[in-house]
């Protein structure tokens, strides 16, 4: 974000200045996040990350004018958020929420047509251009084949894609999605994030997604906004925030540790001593996973360890405490190491 631009910077789709979000009662204003100064450029995919209860939804609601900021300003496409009329806002900002939409007897195309609300006339009649935009939006999310299906009878993943198409039909400059993948299975999550990424690239759309899916977010986002305990907001490319230890600071607890190279968390507790795996490739990785799950700290390379697992294309062999055992399935390997006594010292038999 500090790079010098080679040419004139386009108007950011969204920019906040010294924004504070939170709740106000008659007596006081209680800020959840303060001094938030962030911006999103057209064509950028931003993932909003942070542990539960840190203020992700509060920030999203404030950015979408569903609740007023405590202090500071939000600009949408260069105009102050509070100066926009309801339909001006809807023409700039499309929103997709976590909540499941329970509506019966509406077809997918009709749901997407509702997105033309801020553009259509008094009675909501659609003209040629409206219909063209609706068809384009259905195409863009890969839901053209669902157009005549009953919205209540498609899968959760398809339904969220249709809700995205409906938001696209508003022709916004910014799309905001609040935990849109919460109800979805893994393939649908990956698919939806891939779709959002494609939309930013192909349509110069700016997208802000809040999500709990850290690994997927770090693989997909252009920019991450990371909310730290204490109310600080760290921004940067996924690699910037993982490399700096910010992810670890946001999420690590006593039981887990974040491994930046794998973009995932591991249990911290080593209950059963050290183990080493001799063997390469996928089966070697699998054996490491088994040992970690069983509470071993897995050492790298040829470091000494109390338990040595040798692995080849078909079988595994465990050497520990001067004895050996072998087998073929990973389930049997897990049972074998589980039966070993704790804290074995370096195996002399190796």
């Amino acid at each position, binding site marked *: 974000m500090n790079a010098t631009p080679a040419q004139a910077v386009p108007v950011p789709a969204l920019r906040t200045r010294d924004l504070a979000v939170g709740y106000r009662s008659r007596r006081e204003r209680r800020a959840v996040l303060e001094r938030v100064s962030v911006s999103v450029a057209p064509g950028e995919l931003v993932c909003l990350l942070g542990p539960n209860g840190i203020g992700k939804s509060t920030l999203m609601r404030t950015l979408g004018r569903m609740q007023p900021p405590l202090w500071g300003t939000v600009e949408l496409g260069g105009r102050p958020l509070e100066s926009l009329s309801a339909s001006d806002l809807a023409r700039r900002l499309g929103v997709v929420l976590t909540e499941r939409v329970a509506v019966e007897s*509406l077809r997918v195309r009709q749901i997407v047509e509702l997105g033309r609300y801020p553009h259509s006339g008094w009675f909501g009649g659609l003209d040629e251009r409206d219909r063209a935009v609706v068809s384009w939006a259905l195409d863009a999310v890969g839901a053209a084949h669902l157009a005549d299906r009953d919205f209540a009878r498609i899968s959760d993943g398809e339904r969220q894609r249709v809700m995205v198409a409906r938001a696209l039909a508003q022709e916004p400059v910014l799309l905001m999605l609040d935990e849109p993948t919460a109800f979805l299975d893994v393939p649908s999550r990956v698919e939806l994030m891939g779709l959002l990424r494609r939309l930013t690239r192909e349509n110069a759309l700016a997208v802000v997604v809040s999500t709990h899916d850290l690994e997927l977010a770090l693989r997909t986002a252009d920019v991450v906004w990371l909310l730290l305990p204490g109310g600080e907001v760290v921004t940067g490319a996924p690699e910037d925030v993982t490399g700096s230890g910010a992810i670890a600071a946001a999420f690590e607890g006593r039981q887990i540790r974040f491994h930046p190279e794998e973009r995932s968390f591991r249990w911290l507790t080593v209950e059963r001593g050290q183990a080493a795996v001799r063997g390469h490739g996928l089966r070697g990785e699998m054996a490491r996973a088994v040992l970690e799950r069983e509470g071993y700290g897995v050492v790298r390379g040829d470091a000494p360890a109390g338990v040595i697992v040798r692995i080849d294309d078909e079988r595994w062999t465990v050497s520990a405490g001067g004895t050996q055992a072998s087998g073929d399935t990973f389930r049997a390997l897990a049972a074998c190491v589980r039966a070993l006594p704790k804290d074995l010292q370096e195996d002399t038999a190796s």
Partner: protein
Amino acid sequence: MSGTGHGRREAAVIAGLSVALAAAFVLSLVLGSTHVPVATVFGVLLRSPAANQTGAIVVESIRLPRSLTAILAGASLGIAGLQMQTLFRNPLADPFALGISSGASLGVAIVVLGSGMGVASAFGASTGLGGDALLIAAAIAGALTVLAIVLAVSSRVANPATVLVLGLMFGYTASAVVTVLVGVSAPERLMELARWGFGSFSGVTWQRLSLFAPITLLGLGLAAAMTKQLNALLLGEHYARSMGVAVRRARALTMFGASILGAVVTAFCGPIAFLGIAVPHVCRGLLGTSNHRVLVPAVVLLGAAVALVAQIVSLIPGSAGVLPLNAVTSIIGAPVVVAILLRARRGAFAA
């Protein structure tokens, strides 16, 4: 909204309902305790000099205003029910969801039971400014009082479900006051109140119709003008707001419009149960859509037709007796709705 196969079904349903309404209308003018030939009925409708003078007078001064009242009342209750069901996203919501029916009952009860006036003449020879005009005024005053309280309180409430509960509470309170009044009243007065509770389209004369018709038409027009908002509200208030709906205004206008429709019908015709819940459900089932652009006309047509049929049945064709309209709507309507819901297997609002 588009889709050719669905569009054809929608057109067919609307056409079918129109025919049914026209048939029910003519039938309601032909049937009754006095025999009137069909030719005379058409003579009156086409304003040509009639052969059967007595029949023409019966049709013109009694049956025609009664049938027009039934049409307006049925359409109003159906539309108000549709608005409430969409607004609260609740299949059990009806025009009286905000307690206005109980408010109207309270107004009537206060006049009938509380005052020492001779309201017994209400259903007698009153000619417009007599006792039943007072009842209408009392019912409207009661309904509007409750509506004003609910609207005032609900403007501070964010959650629509809370508004629904509030309406229920005000309704219970009003009903409780009615019960207290009934408990301390003389038996002969109670009969008066009970008769009002039966419901009837017959009390609306041409003179009354000149007040009843504009108000209901205004309410129906408001609903027709808000189909766009109602469609967006199908996705819930959060999504509706994100698409540019002024949700608070839409909610207040819808609650106001639906309640006025319910209140006016209740004031002129008594509390008519059931129609407001059932007609929107049947229309959704027939059309297979929740799109208000086709639901609104369909509900108007079906609501009017059902009210006419109930009116015909309540007169027990071929006899001189009269059944309480309120009972007829439920007795013929409930089994129909049960059958439709069971056949469809999934309710209109199934999660």
